[in-house]
């Protein structure tokens, strides 16, 4: 599941908090990246757990999901995710993978959007045969609790995902997944339900480089922000709420929309436990007359501890 992929920024009550400068956040990201790279392997980690730390920086050119140029605001976000997975064999072909994670996301310019979450997943996997090229089918159930500076954004999420993954030859991996997710927030405008279909093709290029292409289709709730009055959005919105998340009065409109997205990523394996990925993504979202576009660029560093 990728619950944050199409998550729209939120509105609602805001507890405030210290506003950190982008420079300080860059320092924090640098520090976190250094920790990721230089953290020694956890030789004493509990048997079978596979702890993993990922730090990501993402630029979204339309964090407000707006379709009027005056409402379009770009934002930089930093995220960190620590996950640990345990595999339990059930029989020759079946296994359970239990995963726990803690994650945080920070928007230096719009700290109201900062949030942290903790969650767990249970996945049943079936491998059809022996070998790296044998296909794998999995069903994953997940649950998350998240807390946000903008307290109405806090809430509980749950999801189920079905995935099919198969390698072709030495260097091609194809993964097809279907997710269904639900998030219940303190503020009703932040509730969201969605289904998402994703196809990811990853091709090993040479030595330590790989390239992946992703196509996603999502149907579900999104938040679009606009400066009122917007009678067109009022007519479309399931629910709306005034917000000051972006330093000026706007209204968050919750809409049931469809999104088509495409992403390209280039990954460099730095060593046996570390990789660096650079990705670019384009998303087009529509609902009746509403159309908006997001362009995202991200860099991610991941290390198995």
């Amino acid at each position, binding site marked *: 599941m990728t619950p944050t992929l199409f998550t729209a920024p939120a509105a609602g009550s805001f507890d405030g908090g210290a506003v950190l400068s982008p420079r300080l956040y860059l320092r924090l990201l640098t520090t976190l990246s250094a920790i990721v790279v230089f953290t020694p392997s956890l030789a004493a980690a509990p048997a079978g757990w*596979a702890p993993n730390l990922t730090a*990501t920086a993402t630029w979204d050119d339309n964090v407000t999901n707006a379709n009027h140029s005056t409402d379009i605001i770009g934002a930089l976000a930093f995220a960190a*995710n620590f996950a640990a997975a345990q595999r339990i064999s059930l029989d020759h072909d079946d296994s359970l993978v239990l*995963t726990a994670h803690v994650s945080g996301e920070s928007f230096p310019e719009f700290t109201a959007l900062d949030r942290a979450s903790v969650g767990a997943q249970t996945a049943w996997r079936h491998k059809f045969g022996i070998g*790296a090229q*044998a296909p794998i089918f999995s069903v994953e159930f997940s649950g998350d609790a998240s807390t946000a500076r903008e307290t109405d954004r806090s809430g509980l999420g749950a999801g189920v995902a079905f995935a099919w993954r198969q*390698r072709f030859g030495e260097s091609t991996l194809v993964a097809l997944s279907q997710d269904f997710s639900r998030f219940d927030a303190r503020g009703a405008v932040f509730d969201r339900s969605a289904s998402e279909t994703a196809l990811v093709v990853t091709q090993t290029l040479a030595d330590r480089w790989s390239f*992946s292409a992703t196509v996603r289709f999502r149907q579900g709730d999104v938040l679009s922000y606009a400066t009122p009055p917007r009678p067109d959005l009022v007519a479309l919105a399931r629910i709306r709420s005034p917000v000051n998340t972006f330093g000026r009065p706007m209204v968050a409109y919750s809409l049931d929309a469809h999104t088509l997205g495409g992403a390209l990523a280039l990954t460099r394996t730095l060593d046996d436990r570390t*990789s660096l990925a650079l990705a670019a993504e384009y998303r087009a979202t529509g609902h009746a007359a509403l159309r908006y576009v997001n362009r995202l660029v991200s860099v991610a560093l991941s290390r198995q501890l």
Partner: protein
Amino acid sequence: MLRPRCASPALARSFLFAALLAAAPSAASAKDDDVEFRLVDAKNQPVSDAVVSLTPLDQPAPLASAAPAVPPEIVQRHQEFFPYVTAIRTGTAVRFPNRDTVQHHVYSLSKPKKFELPLYDPGKAETIVFDQPGVVVIGCNIHDWMLAYVVILDTPWFAVTPTTGAVILRAIPPGRYRAEVWHPRLAQTATHELTVPAGNAAPLSFSLALKPDRRIRRAPDANRNGYN
């Protein structure tokens, strides 16, 4: 000096995994009845993890002597196989001890030896006899990046190159031989016929055109979270 070459524009690269050197001392101590192999890639870098062998052409290879007192091992540790490449004589038994903290599912789909050690707990050590010559690819059905090779040979004269790319085969009787070099990233085995004289034999130098290394990577994909 003999200088067989495998011409190809492919980029070359040697991977310095734990190399197995079958009792071959340094190249500096070659004697009259020894044959030295020196392997480099297209960038003139030493090639490790290559199997070199000499097969007699004028008479059958000597029968295998008794099995090694200590059978070769392919160890599972830190979710990797060690060593990466093992060379053995046909009929040799190889132990597969799981010295890891997690289960493995060791398997081979290769024709010379198909086998499976499913749900293979830490502390276990199964033994597999490799009774057909050829190359056997060993994998783990849980951890796709785990990879090892067993090269089974019908000759007693073979070795795996260390990181220096140089190795000596000892006490080779005079006569005609087919020298062979195998490497996981060679498109096909490199061969060369030679005559080992009664006296000092010139070193065999091979320049190998290795394919790009496209092994499945262990590192987590920064573009994707989850258990690999």
